[in-house]
């Protein structure tokens, strides 16, 4: 297979083959990070820009390390939301930076679709590092990579995604990724946080955590954004914890051999209890490690063709 896409904007538009190709490419890059000298010259002379309109630590760091391990130059460009409201459009910002001859934009924005606007107006590669409630494709790819590493396959597994599906770009990308690769996805959360018509994209909906995690191979907990309580999506954090938080009691009701995942950062004591977070079947740190390899693969495939 020959990768021809300039951008990675989401998993919705990728085929099963596309996704597997990225994961296969990531396998060879994972080994680089295990070397004493963690660098290959794959993208030497290329310039990547972390264009973050929304604060982020781990995703930005992960992309930065991935770029540097490919020998690319990486620039961090954080745009305060205030400067955007002062009349410069998203596209203006990107074109300004492109005028400095960069090869790739890694875009994080609080507005869904922002990377699409940029992609339509620049020649550089555009990687979506999370847009609004829409997609976070590299997070899903690293999750898929991790699950494949653990189980040796994805097809036939049961994945329970728990929490605020409505506002979660991680959930959306994971739903596309896991279903395309043949897993069965169950989404679970308070009904107010399950978006309209989601069952039509091939997942089952469940409002009961115990029910959802029964027979699940992966329990995937989403981070709860605490400010959602102000919008009355749920009555209180303690009620959320009681019904949708994952603790030892729920842990013991799950399948014998299941694994726990979380995109980070965790709200300990809210969606995840400290005890369960530290169990040996937690894949949380492995996810973070794999993030570098997957992002190296994505950067390599998209940026190497940019002239």
């Amino acid at each position, binding site marked *: 297979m020959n990768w021809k896409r300039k951008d990675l904007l989401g998993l919705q538009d990728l085929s099963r083959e596309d996704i597997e190709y990225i994961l296969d490419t990531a396998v060879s890059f994972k080994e680089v990070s295990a070397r004493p000298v963690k660098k290959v010259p794959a993208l030497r002379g290329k310039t990547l820009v972390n264009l973050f309109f929304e604060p982020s630590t781990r995703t930005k760091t992960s992309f930065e390390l991935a770029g540097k391990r490919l020998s690319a130059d990486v620039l961090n460009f954080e745009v305060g939301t205030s400067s*955007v409201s002062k009349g410069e459009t998203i596209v203006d910002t990107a074109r300004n930076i492109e005028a400095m001859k960069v090869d790739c934009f890694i875009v994080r924005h609080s507005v*869904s679709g922002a990377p*699409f606007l940029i992609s339509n107006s620049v020649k550089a590669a555009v990687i979506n590092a999370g847009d609004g409630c829409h997609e976070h494709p590299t997070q899903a790819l690293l999750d898929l990579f991790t699950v494949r590493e653990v189980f040796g396959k994805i097809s036939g597994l049961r994945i329970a995604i728990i929490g605020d599906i409505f506002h979660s770009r991680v959930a959306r990308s994971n739903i596309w990724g896991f279903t395309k690769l043949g897993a069965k996805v169950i989404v679970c959360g308070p009904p107010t946080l399950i978006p309209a018509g989601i069952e039509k994209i091939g997942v089952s909906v469940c409002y009961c955590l115990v029910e959802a995690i029964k027979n699940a191979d992966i329990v995937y907990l989403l981070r709860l954004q605490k400010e959602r309580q102000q919008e009355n999506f749920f009555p209180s954090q303690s009620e959320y914890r009681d019904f949708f938080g994952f603790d030892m009691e729920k842990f013991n009701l799950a399948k014998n051999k299941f694994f726990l995942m979380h995109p980070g950062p965790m709200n300990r004591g809210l969606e995840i209890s400290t005890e369960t977070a530290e169990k040996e079947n937690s894949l949380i740190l492995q996810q973070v490690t794999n993030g570098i390899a997957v992002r190296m693969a994505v950067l390599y495939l998209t940026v190497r063709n940019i002239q």
Partner: protein
Amino acid sequence: MEILIKNIRVIDPYCKIDSIRDVLISGASFSQISKSIHKKNPKTIDGTGLWLIPGLIDMHCHLREPGNEGEETILSGSISAAAGGFTTICCMANTDPPVDNKVVAGYIFEKAKNAPIKVLPYGTITAGRKGTSLSPMGELSEAGVIGFSDDGNCVMDSLIFRRALEYSKPWGKIVISHSEDQILAKNGVMNEGILSTKLGLRGIPAEAEHIMVYRDISLAKLTGAKLHLAHLTTKKSLDLVREAKKEFKNITCEVAVHHLVLTEDALSNYDANAKVNPPLRTQQDIRALVKGIKENIIDAIVTDHAPHSEEEKGSGIENAPFGMIGFETALPLAMSLVKYGLKPIQIIEKLTIGPARVLKIQPGTITQGAEANCVIFDPEKEWVVTKDNILSQSKNTPFLNKKIKGKVLYTFHRGNIVYSDKSMSQNKGC
């Protein structure tokens, strides 16, 4: 000056005429309409293959003066409207400051004197469009406003809306409701459904409209006032109006052109120019709206022309304001509805005598002695909408760079040519 238009298909819903005629315009009015006119040396337009339509009325548009003259002025908006075939436009009151007193209304009338077509402003329903206290409806009526509207905002307080309907009665002017439960629609960007879920955008459920349409109809019945429902978008809304109209005559409604020709799919590439309020819905809703036109449930087709700057629309779809421009594409887009079995005269009716009846103003007609307000339309001409050929000061339309079939070639207002298509002015001397 005399202008003779030869061999043109005259479509006039007022006289229920749809046939080939010669039409002579002398001064400000039509002086002769017959099968064949012979006249020495008048300026002549060959109307073969073209349509002659009465000047269109748009009872719902937004000009941005006073307050946002960078997006549109009364002059630029009316020039754009003339290019779309409109000879009367009614501008909404959500200017800055809003039209909630006679001074602002007077300012608009003053500016409108320089416009090539007739511009009639609405006054607000509530002071400052805040929904908490009534605007001086009497003062505004005497200043000449054509009706009342807080458009862009729904008067959420049912008691205030009831009072507005009741209080407006002595002046006999319509009260327009932007029927949307704004609390239910809060933070919404587009129609709620599977597509909003996929795009990660917050949805506005159709119920936000139905709830208010039901409330507004109930209050209109209670008060006996003249209620006009703006830009309806769903089948259910039309069902409610259909029921209401059976027993109560003071209810009218309109539909915007874009809701007839676009579905929510126009947002699937995050095109902020397709972000409108109420939102674009589904193909099923379009079919219901077309049926509403056929059955005369819908009284008027409007543009809801809403200019916005590129900066505002380019700030990401969730931050972008609602609205698209519409004057210059309205007539050809509305005409595309013939594919659903509507006759051209039925569509034109909703752009001429339909709104005239709602507003109680003189409808345009192509008859001897009538004011010569009319449009020459080429139903076959294809053209591409570009930033360069749009006359509106703003360019926010999802039809940008798209091909459209049907083009206004000339617009006459009181016998004057207020718009002529570039291709016309280059070839002929009109």
